[in-house]
């Protein structure tokens, strides 16, 4: 359920409940993205270095 759903109510229960759900999902998503992004950046950096070595 999102705040755009017809069933959504702006009450404390919904805010706390879904707040936490989306918070957790955000943490998980950000964590994964961070690790992924870092990996990609590292890889790009390394590959660039390797390319240098090769030439």
């Amino acid at each position, binding site marked *: 359920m999102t705040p755009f759903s017809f069933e959504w109510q702006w009450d404390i229960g919904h805010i706390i*409940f879904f707040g936490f759900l989306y918070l957790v999902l955000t943490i998980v998503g950000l*964590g994964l993205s*961070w690790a992924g992004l870092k990996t990609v950046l590292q*890889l790009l950096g390394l590959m660039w270095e390797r390319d240098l070595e090769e030439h």
Partner: protein
Amino acid sequence: MDSVLIPEGVSRCSAKKFFLWTLPWILILIWGAVSAVLCLWKALNQTNMSNIFAFALWIVFDLGLIALGAGAFFTGFLTYIIGKKELKDIINAAVIIGFICYSGAMAILGIDIGQPLRGWFIFWHANIHSMLVEVSFCITCYLMILTIEFLPIILENNKLEEIKPARLFGKNLHSIMAIFAATGTFLSFFHQGSLGGMFGVMYARPFAARGGFYIWPWTFFLFILSAIATGPCFTILIVRITEKLTKKKLVPDRAIQFLAKLSGILLSIYIVLKITDTVSWICTEAHKAGLTFMDFYKEGPYGIWLPITEIGICGIIPAILLVVPKFRKDPKWLTIACILNCIGIVLNRFSFIIVTLAIPVLPFERFWSYLPTWQEWGIALASIAYGVLIFSLAYRYLPVFPKEKELNPIS
């Protein structure tokens, strides 16, 4: 044949032997798969569940698995948040066990609900007043986190580590594990509690109903406490079994003893609170409903032996065994204590599920009996077979026990 996959510096049995070991579990898994197909295709009439036993064997397995899997979050919490160094030697095993328990439980749930294809309605049309929604939210999220926690261990595999992105990704994930562990702890705490809450809030079911604190019935807290008191014991037990089967020492005693001691203390607290809860329940909720203690234990096989076994034999005794260093340090007593503790928690979940539903509340309603069908057993046992297989594979191909090399040098 599969030697490239096996971690360096450790010995593993031959591939053939390993295959023979997995064979019976694979067969059970096939049995489970057949059952699952039947249940999904022909609907739940394949089971012996009924309008009386709306929750049955599967839910007992679910709750049992989730309680036993609590070792993961609790050990993770102690390792990453509190910073207990000695637990690093066991955290991988704990995480894998947790992952197995939670994913197994989720799979069973997927078959248990009548309309699995609409399962996501829990999220989309969530009723925030329902404890089960809290449970669903938390265990789904927590399973994600367990997967994330499991991932670096998988990526440490010899062969996978050769893949640079994978290795880097695993390392990067590992470096922020504390964040995930913290989130996981938060989630676990709540869903272990809300699993208890699920029963405690069935106010019209006198066997389960409990008073409580704010929106949480006492079972909320008791379930958390019992889960964290038992989870580590289950981890110890699995490690012990692995050690027995592989004839190796895998985890230093330090880690085991720490967990065992902690378990003992928590279990003692839990037992005291559980007895207090039981007594107050008899005097308040049950009394108000017009029922005496023995009214709950006169139907079918669910006699007074249940609470005696659960609280006495499988509660007080393991608590003593775990708290008293003399027993705790004796591997035999430790194993017995762990086994009793695990049985105790499963019995506790069993009572809350089955006995709650089995004893009729209406005075003119009769007692109905329930025995699971082979399809139900198939799916329930498949969760165990699945666990054994995953853990065996993990042990064989992944560096589950960091101290294994050290403790078992290859001569």
